């Protein structure tokens, strides 16, 4: 369609032209999507094939295992009931830690960010705590609470807590002060301000931070299981790694990744239902 073409005579013709352009565009999109999809699939198959047949020629197969063995191992673990057992332990630890950490983070952020002064006083302590590599506390928790699930729950909760706290506090403090002032002048009570202004304004940051922290909860639980435990996915991986059983190590990692991805997908779904109008910004 060039400019030199004769001018469009009537509306019907114009619509026909527009329709044709739109159809072209759609077809182009579809073709591109098909191309991307085939590309992704081909790449995936190629990688798996290389891992199965090629990688063993380059390095000792003992170090890298192969996809068939890994899948077989997952099947074995699944059939033996071992996987379900470890999986449920880790998910329970991470889930409990996630809930505790998120609730504690929300409550303390609302308590602190409500008063400007209080927040300013505590800020340096929070920065200090924030920069503690919290995983370094794992041995301490195990020292305190033994080999059971408690230290894992606490570790997971701690990792979740700070991220939720910081994001919630940032969200609350990000409410425009003039908005609060106007509502105050117009007669809003403290409760009105909280429920009708602060909460909706802070909601995206809160929900987004809650969403990204589930991974952290899993990480906290798995890492504590690495340090010392008798059950859980982290234990499975660590034990296999000490036994030089690389297929089981990979099987464990695949399961952990699957759990994280499923949880992320679910939480993202919840988020888009709760806050369809907003794309959250989070600070790790």
């Amino acid at each position: 369609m060039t400019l030199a073409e004769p001018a469009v005579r009537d509306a019907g013709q114009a619509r026909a032209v527009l329709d044709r352009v739109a159809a072209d565009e759609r077809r182009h999109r579809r073709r591109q999507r098909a191309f991307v999809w085939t590309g992704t699939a081909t790449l995936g198959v190629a990688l798996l094939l290389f891992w199965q047949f090629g990688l063993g020629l380059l390095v000792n197969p003992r170090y890298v295992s192969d996809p068939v063995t890994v899948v077989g191992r997952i099947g074995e673990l699944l059939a033996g009931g071992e996987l379900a057992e470890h999986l449920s332990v880790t998910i329970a630890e991470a889930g409990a830690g996630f809930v505790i950490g998120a609730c504690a983070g929300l409550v303390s952020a609302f308590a602190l960010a409500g008063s400007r002064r209080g927040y300013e006083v505590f800020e340096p302590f929070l920065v200090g705590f924030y920069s503690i590599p919290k995983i370094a506390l794992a041995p301490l928790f195990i020292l305190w609470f033994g080999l059971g699930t408690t230290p894992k729950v606490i570790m997971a909760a701690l990792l979740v807590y700070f991220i939720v706290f910081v994001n919630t506090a940032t969200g609350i403090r990000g409410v425009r002060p003039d908005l609060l002032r106007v509502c105050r002048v117009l007669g809003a009570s403290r409760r009105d301000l909280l429920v009708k202004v602060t909460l909706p304004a802070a909601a995206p940051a809160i929900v987004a931070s809650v969403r990204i922290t589930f991974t952290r909860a899993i990480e906290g639980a798995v890492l504590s299981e690495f340090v010392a435990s008798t059950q859980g996915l982290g234990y499975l991986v660590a034990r296999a790694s000490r036994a030089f059983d690389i297929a089981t190590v990979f099987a464990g990692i695949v399961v952990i990744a699957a759990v994280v991805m499923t949880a992320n997908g679910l939480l993202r779904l919840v988020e888009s239902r709760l806050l369809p109008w907003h794309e959250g910004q989070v600070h790790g």
Partner: protein
Amino acid sequence: MNGATVLENTRREHRAAQHAHRRFLLLTRFGILAAVLAAWELASGPLIRPFFLSSPTEIAETLAEWVTTGELWYHGQFTVTAAVAGYLLGAAAGVLVAWPLGLLRLAYRIVEPYFLVAYSVPAVAMGPVFILWFGLGMTPKILIAAYFVFFIVFINTVAGFHQVPRGLLDTTRVLGASRRAQLRTIMLPSALPFILAALRITLPAAMIGAVTGEFISANRGLGYLTRASAASYSTAGVLAGVLSLSAIVLLMNLMLRPLRHALRWQQEIDVKEGSS
């Protein structure tokens, strides 16, 4: 009283109020710190067994001992070296891999799912694999740290390239800009804030990666020292280890301040999550 003196008086009052506020903050902060430390010191022993809580003096003693025996430097040097080397490696790899993929959108869409999958593997889970592959020395720690850093830098660099407005590229193209000129004058400057922000948040992540590696298995480094203290039921040792690690992270953050300063003209950027 003329306008100038009124203005001067107001200004002085404002300054005085600010001064008072700062003093108030400083005093309450120190007050809280002192109160917590004192309560800790007093509670440890009569109220709670020192085994669980240790005490500030005990931790200070442990730290002093580590300093005098040189243990702190000895172990610290391995952790810091692994973290810094891993940081540099991960950051360089992240930018270098993201660069071509940030420019070729179609290629990026093809490989994107794989990066997302790899990204969602909790980095700590890869620790045992690296240790199996590369033994107990420095290499696995460097690689774990690099792994922690790589994805964050990669994802943010790609995001930086992708947020360049399409229209800007089309317009400059029509006006005759070459691809190279576009890269130099549009793509890089607008991706740079994202890259720098990612570089800033990933230094602590590198530290955590190095410590994770040392936790899983090592015979030196601050992570090892902390874990060895736990193994010998020395709570003070664990807390002293945690304290020195935190101090290093704080120092590293301070050193990266200039990066933040360099970005002050930029609005707060939506950086994809850092590490805990």
